[in-house]
């Protein structure tokens, strides 16, 4: 057990160092968030937009920035031809969890950045109940990382990687997106925490189901 965790952490660290050295995904993601946000701010202009609508827009930014960056972990291994080495070093499941951990860290950082910018610059968006809002962001990030990691592993083996990623991810992430948008709306409307409990149950079970199914199926993808 301790040995497996060590290997998982080693893979996580390897990805982290190689990312910090090139900053390929990081730079692209940050710029993506900034450009999208500025387009939204330009298009809003002086109009007053309802906060309910803006809670959907927040998740549109998060979804598409996820789609633009999170496939890197697996695609770069294929492109650099380092898949075989990874096969030799560790068992598939440890690689999966290492990659999941890395994607999770990346997405969490990205979402904190996005949400901070969004709260600062989109003035008509104000959160009423921060407990709901923060729980939604955390559960949403966990589910998004889990769903997009397994799809990234699939598309790394395909020919047209970039365009295929959002196409394959959208039907799978749709239950998550609908629920987080709903929960964010509740947080804007200053609802009680108990009212959002149903949403959190869905998000939590989605996270568990997707992680378990990825855990069961990753070996088939990785060995192809």
């Amino acid at each position, binding site marked *: 057990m301790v040995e497996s965790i060590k290997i998982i952490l080693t893979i996580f660290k390897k990805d982290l160092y190689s990312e910090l050295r090139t900053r390929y995904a990081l730079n692209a993601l940050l710029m993506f968030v900034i450009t999208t946000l500025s387009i939204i701010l330009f298009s809003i202009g002086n109009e007053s937009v309802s906060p309910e609508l803006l809670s959907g827009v927040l998740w549109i930014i998060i979804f598409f920035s996820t789609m633009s960056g999170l496939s890197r972990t697996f695609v770069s291994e294929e492109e650099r031809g380092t898949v075989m080495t990874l096969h030799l070093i560790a068992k598939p499941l440890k690689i999966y969890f290492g990659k999941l951990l890395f994607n999770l860290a990346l997405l969490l950082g990205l979402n904190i950045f996005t949400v901070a910018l969004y709260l600062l610059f989109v003035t008509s968006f104000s959160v009423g109940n921060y407990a709901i809002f923060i729980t939604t962001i955390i559960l949403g990030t966990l589910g998004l990382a889990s769903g997009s990691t*397994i*799809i990234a592993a*699939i*598309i790394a*083996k*395909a*020919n*047209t990687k970039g365009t*295929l990623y959002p*196409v*394959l991810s*959208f*039907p*799978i992430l*749709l*239950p998550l997106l*609908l*629920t987080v948008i*709903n929960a964010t709306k509740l947080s804007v409307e200053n609802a009680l925490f108990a009212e959002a409990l*149903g*949403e959190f149950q*869905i998000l939590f*079970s*989605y996270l568990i*189901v*997707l992680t378990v*199914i*990825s855990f069961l*199926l990753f070996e*088939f*993808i990785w060995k*192809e």
Partner: protein
Amino acid sequence: MAFKLILGAWLSIILIVGFSFPITTNPTNWYDLPFVPGLEDKARILFFHVPMAWVTTLAFIISLIYGIKYLTKKNLDYDIISSSSAGLGMMFCVLATVTGSLWAKFTWGSFWNWDPRETSIFVLLLIYGAYFALRSAIDGDEKKATLSAVYAIIAGITVPFFIFIMPRIVEGLHPNEAIVSQGKISMNKTMLVIFLSSLAAFTGLFFWILNLKVRAARLESKYYLKGE
């Protein structure tokens, strides 16, 4: 051959009967169909649209089962069945969406309302689309079979979530409430018989086309294996 002829005759009878039997408020004759409030003549879609939606689901489940079988046995024949079933499922999914959407225009006033059923069939359509986009982007039969089977399983797992999510977002408009209320079916015997035989006929149609598709795909793969 006999199966094909019987199926053709059966479907023609359902088509004629489904469109021509009169709908009356007080069914007395054996050929009278009952009047469902709010649906009137538009209730006839039941005989065609519901079986199509049922076949769409059936095709997805068969595709899923054979996908899992492929992953455990690694026999490419299972992949042929799985992908053929998915192809047919997509066709029936488009048919069910189009018929349902046309019907919605005349009953609810617009082609698309994001009713829970509409959303779930839309998601199914997206999954079928993504499945074939994935298949066309992979070289090599084994790789294609494995990855598409894995994708179908992951996608299939997330579909049941909509049952819990959609009622929280929009209210249902679907008339299953009008037809089946409090466990009591407001169809009379004639309507039920036509509906059930249509369901059986569409299922038969699906298996007949699936059989043809699978045989054609097997021949095709044999031809390529021999090398031109």
